[in-house]
């Protein structure tokens, strides 16, 4: 894939470039601030881009705003946002355009190289990927009755669905069969009264909308 990397920390940027190249991706641009990220994306239309949240010139949520700006011009341009911190309200900004092809992960997740590359591929393919910590905050916050009606296993499946995992990925992670996961998913959708949807990012949005209350 053709990838753009945006991070102001040279150490991490070089590390990412190396990791991506070693795994067969081509880094077409590497930039270190918000405005250059926006112009690079608009000029090069990459298959996916990776952007850090805190960058110059503002040193606040620059990367987040840059990502939103890019997707206003290039709707659904796949972007994976990496950050030292994850906050629910930041995720909201990224999901607001409901166009899919978005990811929001803690930087540490890069350490699990295979998972990270898998997330990147899913975002590039139009999927939505959310950090377990964001999902965890959402699930903890809503201690409401319908959630209580889920079995512990179903709650686990719900969390993984919210992170953007496919049924197959969930099955692999929980070490159960695809069929078992499908059954759990069906139960969850029935119990929570959610509209079933095959499209991955719409399924994530449905689950998140539910969790936000």
């Amino acid at each position, binding site marked *: 894939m053709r990838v753009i990397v945006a991070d102001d920390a040279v150490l991490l940027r070089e590390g990412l470039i190396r990791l991506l190249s070693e795994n067969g991706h081509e880094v077409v641009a590497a930039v270190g601030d918000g405005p250059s990220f926006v112009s690079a994306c608009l000029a090069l239309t990459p298959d996916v881009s990776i952007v850090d949240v805190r960058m110059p010139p503002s040193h606040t949520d620059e990367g987040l705003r840059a990502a939103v700006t890019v997707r206003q011009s290039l709707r659904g341009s796949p972007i994976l946002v990496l950050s030292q911190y994850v*906050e629910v309200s930041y995720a909201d900004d990224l999901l607001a355009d409901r166009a899919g092809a978005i990811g929001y992960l803690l930087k*540490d997740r890069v350490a699990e190289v295979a998972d990270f590359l898998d997330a990147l591929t899913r975002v590039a393919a139009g999927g939505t990927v959310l950090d377990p910590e964001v999902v965890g905050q959402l699930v903890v*916050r809503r201690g409401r009755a319908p959630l209580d009606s889920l079995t512990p296993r179903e709650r686990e499946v719900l969390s993984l669905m919210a992170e953007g995992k496919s049924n197959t990925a969930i099955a692999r992670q929980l070490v159960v069969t695809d069929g078992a996961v499908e059954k759990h998913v069906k139960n969850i959708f029935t119990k929570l009264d959610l509209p079933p949807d095959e499209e991955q990012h719409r399924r994530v949005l449905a689950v998140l909308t539910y969790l936000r209350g």
Partner: protein
Amino acid sequence: MPQTSSLGHAPVKRGFIRQLGVDTVYSIFGLVLAVMSFTLIITGLALGIGLLITVIGFAVLALTMLIARGLADMHRIGIGGVLGRPSPRPAYRKSQPGDGWFRKTLSPLRDPQSWLDVLAGIIDLPFAIFAFVVAVVWWAAGLGGITYGLWDWSLPHPPDNKNLNDFLGLGHSAAARIWTNEVIGVIFVLTLPFAIRGAAMLRAIIARALLSGIAEMRHQIVGLQEQNKAAASAEVTALRRLERDIHDGPQQRLVRLAMDLGRAKQQLDSDPVAARATIEEALGQTRETLDELRALSRGIAPPILADRGLESALDALAGRNPVPVDLAIAPNLGKLTASVETTAYFVVAEALTNTAKHSAAQACTVTVARNAGLVGVVVTDDGQGGAHVAKGHGLAGLADRVRAAGGTLTVTSPIGGPTEICAELPCE
């Protein structure tokens, strides 16, 4: 009992009628005090200055100042009543133990506040007379006017007598006369509280500036010194805690990480399987180090606060709290300075941490509101109580932090609960 770390006094709000009573008493009886002060002080000054050529003059002046001081103390009580906040008494200069009798006698003369007392005693008279006249005129005209209908009969009304109604062209009838007086009475009654309040305040404000100006300034300086001390203490505590946290957490983990990687390097040739396991462990260490660092930097300056402001930051805080939080933020909060936002954030953060650790609460509420130059932050929980601002508790550092921002922290936490932690922070 609430434990408060408090600075300054909020003005007392009295009922309308009560304040009118206080102002009237101040204006009417205050004249007696003013006349007494004026006569005694002028006499004392004249006598003292006249006798300065003999040593006795100094003694007379000193005595005059002591009298002025006593009268000033009485006046301060009245001022406190009118202005609704105490008029503080300055610390007068005391004679030193080693002083001879002459120096002792003269010590009132060497205190600048003594001269201010004298000045206040003299210039108070015209204002006292003005306040007295206003009070008497308004009460008399007001009460007399509205009751005029009741005693009009007792006045002689010769035919050539010209009343106000005649000059206003309202006719010469008894009805016109009574109505004119009633209307005047009503006007005076309606303006009574404002006229009396205005005259009393004019007198009290001028007197307060002279009698308590210095004390007030000193009070403020002491307050600022305390605030600085609290800021310094809060900073030292925070830095020490930070150092300890870095030492116990990330530093240890990085050392361990270096060890593990060293071992892995050795194992690579001899035992690749073991090397893989070691590296796996090292990865785990890095993840935990990053978690700890994240928690640490959130504790220093939470990034979301700088990025998104107080509301989002509190929302995120509530989202991470193990005990469910009911968050209510007033919509009129507006723009707050970074320091107020940070302090408010840490009040909530510390209070919630405390709740989660010690209270065994099932639910907490966080309320943030703004009113009259103050931001109020209240955190309550339904736990077992017993929270304390005493040293060694997490709340002690918080009290310092709030005081450093010029605010007050109140902890109400009886044994058995519930706990309420309330911070008031000044904001422009």
